[in-house]
């Protein structure tokens, strides 16, 4: 076997693993989304776009299709919540990462470790913790009542706010770490140069620090936005299942709804959205490189 052949066939194990773990499952999901719902749950193989049509249209009793915004609203809400989570994460991560980057060397390692600490605990446990904090008679409510600030209050749990809090909490480390990395790389002389050239703190943050940490922010945005689109635990546990997002919509279709083809169609749509987002980001990154 010559070197050229080896370069192709030597990668065979990697191709096999990719095929088994990436191509095959996605292929199955796509096939299921094109199938027909089985009479007793499950699905019968077929080729039908009914499930995709169902995202936009509803079949009335006479078999006519009528436009329904029901699922679009869920998709819109998911995009909105994921976007908002990403923005809040970015706004919180920038100062946090800056503080870590400025810390003395021996503290730096400890602070980075603390940021990653939540990953050592199961996601479910961490989300449950927020139920204890936000719930009726929870930590926040008891504290506020104890201080005499409120007599009675609406539940904080099972709201958009609770979901948002959970999402920000879950994914913010994925924003802090890349932003920290890009701030670390930032030459401190550049910040001094900005001050030296009459740049106030605000000017320095806006015109020097922000643009130079943008690659880190964009990487963080991808890492936060993409999993937020498919979040399941937060809408179920903190949204109380009252607020539907794409993640728990899919989960419901495969579970209680017993409409696998429809669940698969939504999953494929979600994947499409993610890919569009990633492609836009890649285009932007390439434009940036050609500028530099």
């Amino acid at each position, binding site marked *: 076997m010559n070197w050229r052949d080896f370069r192709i066939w030597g990668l065979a194990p990697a191709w096999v693993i990719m095929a088994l773990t990436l191509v095959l499952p996605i292929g199955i999901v796509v096939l299921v989304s094109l199938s027909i719902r089985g009479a007793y749950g499950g699905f019968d193989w077929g080729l039908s776009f009914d499930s995709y049509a169902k995202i936009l249209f509803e079949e009335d009793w006479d078999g006519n299709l009528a436009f329904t915004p029901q699922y679009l609203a869920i998709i819109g809400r998911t995009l909105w919540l994921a976007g908002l989570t990403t923005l809040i994460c970015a706004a919180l991560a920038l100062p946090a990462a800056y503080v870590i980057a400025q810390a003395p060397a021996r503290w730096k390692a400890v602070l980075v470790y603390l940021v990653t600490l939540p990953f050592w605990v199961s996601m479910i446990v961490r989300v449950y913790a927020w139920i204890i904090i936000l719930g009726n008679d929870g930590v926040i409510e008891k504290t506020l009542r104890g201080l005499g600030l409120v007599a009675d209050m609406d539940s904080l749990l099972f709201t958009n706010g609770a979901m948002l809090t959970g999402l920000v909490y879950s994914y913010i480390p994925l924003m802090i770490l890349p932003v920290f990395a890009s701030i670390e790389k930032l030459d401190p002389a550049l910040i*001094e*140069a900005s001050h*030296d*050239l009459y740049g*106030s703190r605000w000017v320095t943050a806006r015109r020097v620090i922000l643009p130079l940490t943008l690659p880190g922010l964009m990487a963080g945005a991808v890492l936060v936005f993409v999993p937020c689109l498919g979040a399941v635990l937060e809408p179920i546990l903190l949204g109380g299942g009252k607020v539907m997002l794409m993640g728990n919509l899919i989960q419901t279709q495969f579970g209680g709804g017993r409409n696998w083809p429809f669940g698969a169609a939504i999953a494929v749509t979600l994947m499409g959205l993610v890919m569009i987002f990633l492609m836009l980001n890649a285009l932007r990154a390439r434009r940036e490189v050609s500028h530099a």
Partner: protein
Amino acid sequence: MERKKAIEVQNVAKSFGSFQALKGVSFDIYDNEFFTMLGPSGCGKTTLLRMIAGFESPTAGTIRLHGRDILDQPPHKRRVNTVFQSYALFPHMTLEANIAFALENLGWEKARIRDRVAQMLDLVHMTPFARRRPAQLSGGQRQRIALARALASEPEVLLLDEPLSALDLKLRQAMRDELRALQRATGITFIFVTHDQEEALDMSDRICVLGAGEVQQIGAPNEIYEDPENRFVADFIGETNFLPAEVVSVEGDRATVTTPLGPVTTWHKGAVAGAPAMLSLRPEKIGMEDQAPGEALHGTITGRNYMGGYTHYTVTVNGTELRVSKRNAVSHGASLAIGAPVRLGFRPDSARVLAR
């Protein structure tokens, strides 16, 4: 005519923990001066420069800029700009934008900024590169843009933090001339920090030699080299032979000492009759063979380093080793072999007696 003081450094001290980086230094820098702070690393020169810029504050003392105390002003309020050692050009901005940055922060009008940027690019011969980014430039070009950026707002003082150290030798020499010309053309006070004595001697109006957190000597380049104030300065600037000496008598500025080379009467700094001292004798002040002035000394060549333009010989005279440098005036001229006897001489006035 009394010249206007641009910077007054008064009793400035700085401690980092128990380490005293600066032990209360004072000096004045005048308008339109090319002033160099020279010293080995750790002598406090960069700390001093960063204090003038506002990036560090002294533990004690004051710094005035044209008579005003500036220590309570943050860096962005001081009409002082810095050329950083790494240049610190903003990598995400074009060269134009880099130069315009300070002017925008000062609130200049758009048209005025445009004119000024064009003028600065022209001054450093970089006009065709206006739209490029720093990554597309060579080291020398970056240096020029850093200068243009720092000079654009016509600061009261320009600070230069070892700006030539990142360049290769040839470029460094060319940039010395450019820096000097730029200072003359703009009339702005330059405060230049370096550990390279050659740079300092070449460019400066005055040099401040710093050592161990103290001012060792301030003076014109030739004063620093020819009339060093003390042993530190004589040792740090250029090369010299230190000979142990005993002071026989002192008369005003002149002292007579006994040395291993015999008695010498010459200018002194801090010599006290009867006390031990040092005779500093630069290698190029010693002549060999037919170029030996004064009383003849007889020695033996014990070492030889060929440097191209010069040959450095080590000559042992009465058990004392002397470094002697000889210009290679003729190509493939006769050179003295190791072990050969040699006649040496020097003018006593070229040597200096320094306190030990």
